C-alpha cells in the first residue's frame, strides 16, 4: 500500500465533499443554526407552559375550616406558595353540579369529569371534615386528650381527596401543584395547633440536617458533563460518518465514477484507507461543531432561564472543565475511527445512496444499546464491560472526564485493543467488499424466497461460503445464548453430564452437520473428515502435552486478574467430584465437547471462512467465535488462544481428526491436572522444581513453561512443513501479494 496514493485519494475526497452543498449543510450549517433555534423554541415553549394555569374544581369548599385559610376566592391562599405569584397557577372554581352531600354518586361524576378533561383535577373535601377538625382543635385546646387519643382522632378524620388523571400531563401537573399546596396548608395547621397550646414552633423541628458537598466545583461540572457529552459526541460522530460514507461509496457507484477509480492504479486498500480517513475527518468535524454549538447555546439558555425564572438549584452550571474537554477530543479519534470504518463497510455494501440510507437504522439499532448501556448507574468499567465495543470506550471516556485515571489506565489496554480490533475488522470487511464483484456490480434482483432456497441447494459449492460460515457461527451463538439461559445449573453429576452432552450435540454438532449436509456438495471435505498423515496424530498429542504448562499458566493468570466468583467455582468443583470415575469424567467433559466443537468451529466455520482468501484472518475469526461460544469471559480468552492453535493445525493438516485429538488431549490434561497436580505438589519428592503453588492453585514453574513452550514452537514448525491444501482464494491472494511486492520494487 502506498501512502502517497492514500493521501491523494483522501485530499480529493475531502475537496469533493466540501464542494457538495448537502454535505456542508449537514456538517456545518445545520449544527450552527439547529441548536440556537431549538434553544429559542425551548425557551418560548417553557415560558408558555409555565403560564398555563391548572383548572381545579373543589367539592365541599364550605366544609373547609376558616383558619388557616386554604382558599382565597378563586385562588388558593398566597401564603401557601413559595412565591406569591405562583398562586395564579391554580385556578379554583366550585364544582358545578349537584350541591348535595359527598357520596358515591358524586364521586363517580367527579371522576368522569376529570377523565373527560373538563378540569385538570378535583379536590373533594369530605362532609364532616371542617367540623371534625374544629372538634379536635377544641379538645386540644382544653388539654382533655391523652396522647394516644389524639393520634386516634386524627386518624379518624377523613382527609380531602385529589382526583386526577395520570394519563394526562396537565392533570399530573395539577396534582403535583395541589398536593404541594395541601402539604404546606397541613404544616400551617400543625403550626397553629402548636401556637395555640403555647408550644414553641421549634419543637416540631428539633434539629436541622446540614449537608456538606466535598466535590470541587470543577469536578461537579465534570460529573454532569461526563454523562451527557460522550453520548452527544458518539451520536454525532456516527451521523457525521454515515452520510459522507454513503456519498463516498454508494453515491460513487450510482454516479458511475467507481469503475473509473477501480481501473486506476490505486489499490483497493488504498482506496478504502483514503475514503476512511475522509469519513473520519468529517465525523470528527461534525461532532466538534455540534458540541461547540450545543455548548454555546446551552450556556446562553441557562443564563437566560436563570434570569427569568429564578431557578433555585444546586446544579453546577457552566462549561465543562478543560481537562474533560481535552479527553473528549482525544477519545473522539478512536470513536470516529470505529464509526467511520463501520459506516464505510456498510456503505460499500449499498448499491445506491437510497439503499445506503436503509442501513443507517440497523447500524443505529446495534450501536444505540451499546451507547445507552454506560448511562445506567450500575454499569461501571470492569473486565467485562471494557471488552464490549463502544460501551467500554464510552465508560473509559467517562472515567477520564471524571479524572478517575486509575480505572481508565487499568482498562485502557483491553478497551483500545477491542476498539482497534473492531476497526481493523470493519476496514478488512470494507476492503473485501471493494474486491467483491458481486457487491460492486450487484444488479437489483427481485428477491423471492423460493428461488433463493432453490439457489442455495442448486448452486451450492463444495465448501460453505463465508456468509454461510458467519451465519452458522451467529446461529450457534444465538442458540447458546437463548437456550442455555433457560436452564439452571444442574444439581448433581448426572444432570451436569446430560446437560453438557445435550448442549454440545444440539448447539455445535447438529447445526454444523446439518448445514454441511444441506449447503455444500462435499460435506466430508467441508468438515475435514480426511485421513491425516499418520505422524500428525501423535504430533498433535505431543503438541497438546507441550502446550499444557503454558495453558495452565495462562488460565491461572487470567483467573488472578479476573477471579471467577467463588460460588461458581465451588459448585462446579462439587459437581465434577460427583462423577462415577475418571474415564466417564474425561468422556463427558473432554471427548464429547472436543468432537462437537471441532465439527462446528474447525469444520464448517473455518472451512467457510477460508474463502476470505486470508488464512490467518479465517483462523483468528473462527477462534474468536470459538472463544465467545464458551460464554464465561475467563474461559473465552483461553479458548480464543487455543482456537488459533487448533485452527492452524486444521489448515496445515487438513484433517479434523488431528484437531479433535489435540483438543481431547488438552481438555483431558486440564481435568487431570485439576485432580492430581495438587496431590503431586504435596507428595512427590523433588516436585518443587516442576510445580509451585500460587494464590489460585498449583502451576508449573517458569523454566518448565519456557522449555515446553519452545519445544511446542518446534512442533508447530513441523506442522508448518506439512503439504497444505490452499483454497483458490488463498492462492490468488498469495499471487496478488507477490505482485504487490513486484510493483513496489
Amino acid at each position, binding site marked *: 500500500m*502506498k501512502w*502517497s*496514493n492514500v493521501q*491523494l*485519494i483522501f485530499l*480529493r475526497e475531502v*475537496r*469533493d465533499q466540501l*464542494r*457538495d452543498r448537502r454535505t456542508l449543510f449537514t456538517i456545518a450549517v445545520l449544527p450552527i443554526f439547529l441548536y440556537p433555534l431549538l434553544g429559542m423554541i425551548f425557551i418560548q415553549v417553557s415560558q408558555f407552559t409555565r403560564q398555563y394555569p391548572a383548572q381545579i374544581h373543589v367539592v365541599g369548599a364550605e366544609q373547609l375550616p376558616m383558619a388557616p385559610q386554604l382558599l382565597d376566592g378563586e385562588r388558593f391562599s398566597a401564603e401557601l406558595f413559595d412565591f406569591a405569584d405562583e398562586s395564579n397557577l391554580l385556578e379554583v372554581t366550585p364544582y358545578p353540579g349537584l350541591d348535595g352531600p359527598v357520596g358515591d354518586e358524586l364521586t363517580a361524576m367527579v371522576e368522569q369529569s376529570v377523565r373527560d378533561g373538563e378540569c385538570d383535577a378535583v379536590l373533594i373535601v369530605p362532609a364532616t371534615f371542617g367540623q371534625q377538625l374544629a372538634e379536635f382543635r377544641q379538645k386540644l385546646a382544653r388539654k382533655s386528650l391523652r396522647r394516644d387519643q389524639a393520634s386516634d382522632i386524627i386518624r379518624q378524620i377523613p382527609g380531602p381527596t385529589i382526583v386526577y388523571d395520570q394519563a394526562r400531563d396537565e392533570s399530573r401537573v395539577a396534582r403535583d401543584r395541589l398536593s404541594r399546596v395541601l402539604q404546606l396548608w397541613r404544616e400551617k395547621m400543625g403550626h397553629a395547633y402548636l401556637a395555640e397550646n403555647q408550644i414553641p414552633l421549634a419543637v416540631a423541628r428539633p434539629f436541622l440536617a446540614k449537608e456538606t458537598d466535598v466535590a470541587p466545583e470543577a469536578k461537579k461540572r465534570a460529573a454532569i458533563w461526563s454523562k451527557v457529552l460522550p453520548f452527544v459526541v458518539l451520536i454525532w460522530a456516527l451521523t457525521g460518518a454515515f452520510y459522507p460514507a454513503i456519498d463516498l461509496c454508494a453515491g460513487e457507484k450510482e*454516479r*458511475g*465514477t467507481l*469503475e*473509473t477509480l*477501480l*481501473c*486506476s*492504479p*490505486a*489499490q483497493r486498500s488504498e482506496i478504502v484507507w483514503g475514503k476512511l480517513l475522509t469519513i473520519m475527518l468529517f465525523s470528527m468535524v461534525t461532532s466538534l461543531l455540534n458540541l461547540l454549538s450545543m455548548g454555546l447555546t446551552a450556556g446562553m439558555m441557562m443564563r437566560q432561564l436563570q434570569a427569568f425564572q429564578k431557578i433555585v438549584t444546586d446544579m453546577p452550571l457552566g462549561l465543562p472543565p478543560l481537562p474533560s474537554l481535552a479527553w473528549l477530543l482525544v477519545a473522539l479519534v478512536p470513536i470516529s475511527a470505529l464509526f467511520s470504518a463501520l459506516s464505510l463497510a456498510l456503505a460499500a455494501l449499498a448499491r445506491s445512496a437510497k439503499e445506503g440510507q436503509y442501513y443507517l437504522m440497523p447500524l443505529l439499532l446495534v450501536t444505540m444499546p451499546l451507547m445507552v448501556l454506560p448511562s445506567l448507574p450500575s454499569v461501571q468499567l470492569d473486565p467485562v464491560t471494557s471488552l464490549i465495543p463502544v460501551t467500554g470506550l464510552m465508560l473509559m471516556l467517562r472515567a477520564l472526564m471524571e479524572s478517575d485515571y486509575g480505572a481508565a489506565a487499568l482498562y485502557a489496554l483491553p478497551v483500545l485493543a477491542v476498539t482497534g480490533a473492531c476497526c481493523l475488522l470493519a476496514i478488512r470487511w470494507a476492503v473485501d467488499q471493494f474486491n467483491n*464483484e*458481486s457487491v*460492486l*456490480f450487484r444488479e437489483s*434482483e427481485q*428477491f*423471492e424466497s423460493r*428461488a*433463493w432456497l432453490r*439457489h442455495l441447494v*442448486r*448452486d451450492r459449492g463444495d465448501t460453505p461460503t463465508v456468509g454461510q460460515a458467519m451465519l452458522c457461527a451467529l446461529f450457534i451463538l444465538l442458540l447458546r445464548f437463548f437456550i442455555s439461559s433457560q436452564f439452571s445449573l444442574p444439581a448433581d453429576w448426572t444432570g451436569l453430564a446430560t446437560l453438557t452432552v445435550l448442549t454440545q450435540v444440539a448447539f455445535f454438532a447438529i447445526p454444523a452437520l446439518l448445514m454441511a449436509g444441506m449447503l455444500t456438495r462435499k460435506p466430508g471435505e467441508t468438515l475435514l473428515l480426511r485421513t491425516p498423515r499418520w505422524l500428525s496424530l501423535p504430533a498433535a498429542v505431543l503438541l497438546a502435552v507441550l502446550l499444557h504448562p503454558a495453558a495452565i499458566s495462562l488460565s491461572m493468570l487470567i483467573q488472578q486478574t479476573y477471579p471467577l466468583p467463588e460460588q461458581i467455582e465451588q459448585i462446579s468443583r462439587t459437581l465434577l467430584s460427583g462423577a462415577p470415575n475418571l474415564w466417564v469424567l474425561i468422556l463427558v467433559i473432554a471427548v464429547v465437547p472436543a468432537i462437537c466443537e471441532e465439527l462446528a468451529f474447525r469444520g464448517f466455520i473455518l472451512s467457510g471462512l477460508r474463502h476470505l482468501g486470508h488464512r490467518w484472518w479465517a483462523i483468528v475469526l473462527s477462534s474468536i467465535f470459538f472463544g465467545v461460544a464458551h460464554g464465561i469471559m475467563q474461559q473465552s480468552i483461553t479458548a480464543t488462544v487455543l482456537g488459533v492453535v487448533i485452527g492452524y493445525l486444521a489448515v496445515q493438516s487438513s484433517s479434523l481428526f488431528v484437531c479433535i485429538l489435540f483438543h481431547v488431549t488438552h481438555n483431558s490434561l486440564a481435568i487431570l491436572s485439576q485432580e492430581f497436580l495438587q496431590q503431586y505438589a504435596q507428595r512427590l519428592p523433588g516436585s518443587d522444581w516442576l510445580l509451585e503453588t500460587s494464590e489460585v492453585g498449583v502451576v508449573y514453574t517458569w523454566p518448565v513453561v519456557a522449555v515446553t513452550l519452545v519445544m511446542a514452537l518446534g512442533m508447530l514448525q513441523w506442522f508448518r512443513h506439512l503439504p497444505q491444501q490452499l483454497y483458490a482464494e488463498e492462492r*490468488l491472494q498469495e*499471487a*496478488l501479494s*507477490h*505482485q*504487490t511486492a*513486484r*510493483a513496489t520494487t
Partner: protein
Amino acid sequence: MIQVSELTKTYSDLRRGQFVAVDRISFHAMQGEIFGLLGPNGAGKTTVLRILSTILRPSAGIATVNGYDVLTEPALVRHQIGFVSANTAVYDRMTAWELVEYFGRLYGIERSLLRERMENLFERLKMNDIRDLLGSKMSTGMKQKVSVARALVHDPPVLIFDEATAGLDVLVGRALLDTISELRDQGKCIIFSTHIMREVERLCDQIAVMHRGHILSAGTLHELIEQHEEDDMEELFFRLISDYDTRHELANVER
C-alpha cells in the same frame, strides 16, 4: 500485446443459476492494431473488457496484457492500460484539469512531466476551453474527451474503448474515431467494442463478432467478407447472429 485464451466468466443468478456471460473465448491483439469487438447488446463485450481492465476477475481461462496476468497481477496490468467506457464516468465536482491531474498522480507520474503531458493532451484533444469546467456542467462529448485524456495521461501501451462513442453526436464521435486511429498510428494496441457496423468498417484491423458470450467469427474485414461470401457488413453481422440463434433454438428443442 493482449492474449486471451479460453476466457470464461460466469455469474450466479438467483433464477437462472450459473449464468455464463463469456464462454471460453480466445483472441489476441497486436501492437499498432485496432481490434474490434462487434456484438449486439448483452453479447458479453463489456464483461470481456472489464476483465481486461481488471475490474472483474475471470472465472476460468487466461488473459494477459503486455505479459501481465489480469488475475494475479492486476496492479501491473492497470499500469499498462487506459480504459474508457460508458461506465467510467467523470467526477461531477472536479474540473477537467483536476481530474486528469488526479489520475496522473495516482499513476505516480512526476509533477513536471505530468504537467507537460497534460498541456499536450489538452492541446491535442482541444480541451483547453473546458479546463476549469466542473464535470457536472459538461456535455456528454466534453465528458468523453476528459475520459480519453484520463486514459491517456500515463501514456499506456494498451487502450480499451468500450462503446466509447455511445451517446456522442456525429461531430464528436468522428473526432474520437480520428483520435483512436491516430493512437494506432503511434503504435498503441487498441481494443474497441461497439455495436455500430460503420465504426468497425472504418477503424478496425481485426474484427471479432460476439454474441451470447461466444465469438462467432473473427478475422480482418476482408477475411470475414470472403469467409462468409457477403460484402455488406451489416448483412453479414445479422446473418451470423440469426444463424447462431436458430441453431441454438433447434438444439434446445431437440433437448
